[in-house]
């Protein structure tokens, strides 16, 4: 009898201590979250995470630079000829093979909108901002963009064609809110 009581009692007694200890640990864990989360971007910073951009004022052949999360974003309204030229490139000629269509997204109707090309305007080599000129050599040999820092040439799909840059100009996450309204910063 005595032996059983001695054996059982500690377990029953310990239970309350285990419960209290667990509750303290769990509570501390919950309280740790605000202490960690306060270092994440605050609401005012997050409100700048996406921008809306209306492309209806853009003229054919023109490029506009929008500022998004502190980075330049190239939004280019390409001519029919430029689109055709981008489409015609042989993938074997490319350092970072990608078709022009792979670099576009669909509008609200589900069809690709090849006239608008959106890229992040930062050279993938060492971070300079490439120059734009579709008509002149200032825009590089492929009449897209040319990076003046170390001479990377991008074509009018933003793909690297010549020079030290390892990859094509990056495409930011964006989507079409309407036929002409882009939201940059959120995935489609």
């Amino acid at each position, binding site marked *: 009898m005595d032996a059983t009581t001695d054996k059982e009692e500690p377990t029953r007694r310990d239970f309350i201590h285990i419960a*209290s200890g667990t509750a303290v640990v769990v509570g501390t864990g919950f309280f740790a*979250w605000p202490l960690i989360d306060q270092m994440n971007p*605050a609401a005012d*910073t997050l409100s700048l995470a996406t921008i809306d951009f209306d492309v209806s004022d853009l003229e054919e052949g023109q490029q506009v630079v929008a500022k998004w999360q502190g980075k330049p974003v190239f939004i280019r309204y390409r001519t029919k000829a430029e689109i055709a030229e981008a489409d015609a490139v042989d993938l074997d000629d490319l350092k970072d093979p990608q078709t022009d269509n792979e670099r576009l997204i669909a509008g609200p109707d589900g069809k690709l909108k090849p006239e608008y090309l959106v890229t992040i305007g930062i050279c993938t080599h060492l971070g300079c901002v490439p120059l734009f000129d579709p008509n002149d050599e200032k825009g590089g040999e492929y009449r897209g963009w040319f990076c003046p820092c170390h001479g990377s040439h991008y074509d009018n799909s933003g793909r690297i064609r010549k020079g030290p840059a390892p990859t094509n100009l990056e495409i930011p996450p964006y989507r079409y809110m309407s036929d002409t309204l882009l939201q940059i910063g959120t995935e489609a």
Partner: protein
Amino acid sequence: MSGPSRYNPSTGIEKWLDARLPIIRLGVDTLIFPSPRNLNYWWTFGAILAVMLVSQLITGIILAMHYVPHPEHAFDSIQHINRNVNFGWLLQPMHAVGASMMFLAVYIHMFRGIYYGSAKNPREMIWIVGMVIYLLMMAAGFMGYVLPWGQMSIWGAIVITNLFSAIPPEAAGTSVTQWLWGGFAVDGPTLNRFFSLHYLLPFLIVGMVILHVWALHIPSNNNPTGISIKTKADTLDFHPYYTVKDAFAIVVFLMIFSWFLFFMPDSMGHPDNYIPANPFSTPPHIVPEWYYLPFYAILRAVPDKLMGVIAMFGAIGVLFALPWLDTSKVRSMRYRPLAKQFFFLFVLVCLGLGWCGAKLPSDLVFATGVDADGHAKGLTFVWFSRILTVYYFAYFLVILPILGLVEKPKPRPASIEASVLGNSKGEA
């Protein structure tokens, strides 16, 4: 620490570490030491204060990540924390309300010390180090209240720093106020240095707390009977007996803290501090935070500027001498019927001084009639605070010293163990 060490390293790793850095031994001996077996809930406020200090440190360090100590941005950055920073709405009020809660706990802790004679031989150094902690808390609390740079912040800073203008420049060799301000008025440089010092002081407090606890481990805790520990039967190990009791008390205290924090966060503050600082417009009624009110009342009770400042600092200074002013051989007022009554009157006087500090000096405590011009007359708060101030100082300088010599204490139990076992017959 009292008694031999209770730590016996068992594994090889523990022995290895113990021979090189006996940190586990330090921890064990800090927590497992013999404490009187009869400590009541008034003894839990030490642990509550430790928790509050850690809470203030954590929230304070976090606030410093978002706060900008510049007159143009300080107020805005507090709003930024409350509106934009993730959980800022929780952490900023937690720090502000937490300061009030910490002072609430420290006052209970101090009153307990006075009542049970915890300041007296052999615990004088615990009390004095504790008073240094209290002074550092006052300084940290004052400078912290300036940081939001609202109307009460700047005007509190102006009024308090101007206390030092009572020191004649010839005596100090320079204008003390200009030196404090870093300019000709309370402005950017003042705010910036207050921020720096506000960040520093809590670490000094931590250092003093370590000394406070160290000093406590020499004679161990006082207890409600005030009788020294005589045998092992008088004691229990601090852990687990008092760790679990303190933990329970801490959680109850946190519930009170949470109630203020979540449901009435503005109750301890002043609405004027939601108005950005304006050095050209004084609010009609400046009051310090509630925990300074008794001293503020003493300051205003004295009609002379320098004497008022001396009285205010003297009110704190006299506490340092408490261990020697209380001349009674009996520690606990439980066995001192007269001292007990004077003590409760002293507590009421402190509360009354706090009440006076919150009122305009010319307001009436109660009206006795009207004067010739038809204005109500009666006891004004300034006169009420004068009466209370006299008692405050008399309590320490006259009542306690004389009472110890003339009062006949009640019979005390023979030992802590005897008091616990209900055997109150013992030494007289």
